[in-house]
């Protein structure tokens, strides 16, 4: 008998708790419109800044930003669990096909630009490389820094996991296609690190290391060295950032060649709460925030 009493008590307690919980949830939904944003790690900081400023202006909006990589964001958008996908690359054919099969029509917004910096350890004597040299380093053709007139030590490659937009972009843009018409792959011994921050950390600690990541991340950092890049042997070496400042002009006019647009994707024509946020991003205020966060605003 005792046991029965206890059981009823426990069950009723659980029920009461559940009622309470659902009650709380309902209340919040009435108060706030929630927009969920997920995707590119490169864009997380920027996206959070937009969200903060936007929420200050509109107290009844709640923008929730998470990272995880462009692929993750796009996958979430296609699964219908997100309002906005941040992506540092254009959607792939494959993803458009999947979207079609789920009757989703992704709508593209260009929201900012980003340059990719190639970074080495501060003790590395090398200051500039051509695009071709960077490519050959990352496909494992060069194995020692002395082949590039550096010091006599092996080259240690650091890269990103294959869900990252930075990885995709670098692979397409820098590694390109080989003689057989297949996209080249990163060398097998490339160490895969989760996130640009971890990569910067690794290169800062590793005298032999070389890595890549958004200029915004590295411009103000003194513990890694950003290489100047030459389009070919004769061209000028252009630095994507100098003295802690991003070199906007070079990225807008394409003289610094490793740059890309950053995108937001929404499902079809977005509803009002999402559209308002997108309008804010594309407004002058939103673009000023881009500059403030060390990314490159859209050319006016």
């Amino acid at each position: 008998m005792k046991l029965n009493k206890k059981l009823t008590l426990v069950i009723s307690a659980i029920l009461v708790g559940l009622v309470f919980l659902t009650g709380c949830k309902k209340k919040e939904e009435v108060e706030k419109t929630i927009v969920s944003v997920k995707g590119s790690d490169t864009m997380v900081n920027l996206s959070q800044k937009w969200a903060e400023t936007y929420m200050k202006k509109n107290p009844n909006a709640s923008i929730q930003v998470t990272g995880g990589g462009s692929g993750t964001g796009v996958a979430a958008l296609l699964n219908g669990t997100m309002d906005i996908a941040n992506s540092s690359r254009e959607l792939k054919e494959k993803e458009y096909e999947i979207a079609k099969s789920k009757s989703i029509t992704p709508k593209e917004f260009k929201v900012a630009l980003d340059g990719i910096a190639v970074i080495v350890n501060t003790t590395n004597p090398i200051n500039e490389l051509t695009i071709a040299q960077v490519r050959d380093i990352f496909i494992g053709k060069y194995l020692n820094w002395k082949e590039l007139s550096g010091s006599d030590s092996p080259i240690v490659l650091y890269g990103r996991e294959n869900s990252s937009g930075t990885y995709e972009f670098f692979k397409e843009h820098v590694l390109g296609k080989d003689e057989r018409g297949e996209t080249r792959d990163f060398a097998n011994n490339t160490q895969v690190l989760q996130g640009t921050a971890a990569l910067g950390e690794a290169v800062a600690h590793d005298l032999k290391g070389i890595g890549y990541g958004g200029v915004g991340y590295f411009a103000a950092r003194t513990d890694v060295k950003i290489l100047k890049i030459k389009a070919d042997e004769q061209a000028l070496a252009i630095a994507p950032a100098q003295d802690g400042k991003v070199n906007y002009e070079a990225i807008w006019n394409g003289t610094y060649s490793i740059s890309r647009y950053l995108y937001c994707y929404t499902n079809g024509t977005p509803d009002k709460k999402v559209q308002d946020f997108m309008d804010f991003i594309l407004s002058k205020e939103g673009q000023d925030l881009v500059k403030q966060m060390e990314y490159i605003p859209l050319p006016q």
Partner: protein
Amino acid sequence: MTEIQTSDEKVEVEDSVQERAESSLYGKKISLKVRVKEKIIEYFFALNGAVALIFIILIFIFLFKEGINALNNIGLLDFIYYDQVQLNQTVERLFEWYPTSSEERYSLLPLIVGTLLTAIPATLISTFFGVAAGVYLSEIVNPKLREFLKPMIELFASIPTVVLGFLILVVGATIFNDLFHPSNRLNAFIASLGLSFVIIPIIASMTEDALRSIPTDLRMASYGLGATKWQTISRVIIPAGFSGVSASIILGFGRAVGETMIVLMAAGNAANITTDLLLSVRTMTATIAAEMGEVSQGSDHYYALFFIGIILFTITFFLNLIAEIIINKMRKKNVF
């Protein structure tokens, strides 16, 4: 950890339940109500036991259902090598895991090598320290100190592996790098050191359980023959508890194979095929963890990841099974 209960005790307990259900001490029949209640409780517990079993079977089914799909488009041989046709029509045989390339390559060889290269050194290190700690706890330490030490060791086992991984990544790797200048800062050896922190407590506490279940008569007999404490430990206790100790090592190895977070953070994740402990490696678990988030559902890559899951599950399942069999044998043997 498993509670070691001699089978004698179990039999006694079962007997008493039987007696109570059928007739009380005064020979009266027990009322129907009580008997029904007993039965209900019995079934309730049986159901709970069954639920655990059902879940395991469901996991098995799900894994295999998803993983077997990998074999539709990827042949078994593709999981071993990929023949790349070069420009001059020669064929180069590649053992690479590269599912996102334009020529998808699914060789599991680098991942299996990477897994072994972190798990085996970790198990060796942990066996040395874990068994020593277990012997100390069971044979040497005074009881008061044991009361304090054993919970401490088990507490150690409960440190979240993310925290361990982070410490190894930030502190361990830097110190190791400054001292030995390995070719890669994050390498298999650093990862296996991190794994050791997880496995040592497991081996230590299971070894201690195994050694303490050895009857005292053996120790007394050994001392009676004039053996010293050390001789007793090395020639009587450890041989007698050998099966228990080896079971704990097998379980530790299984844990090392299945551990994810530490290797993901500290092993560097380069898919090298190597036997050099100072190079980065990539394990099966880290591959699943790193790639599952972004893979599009239903693609070959997705099923290939599940296939890795099947292999992992099978390995750990059999390791646990072997350990369980050994432990059961040991229990039967040590009942005098």
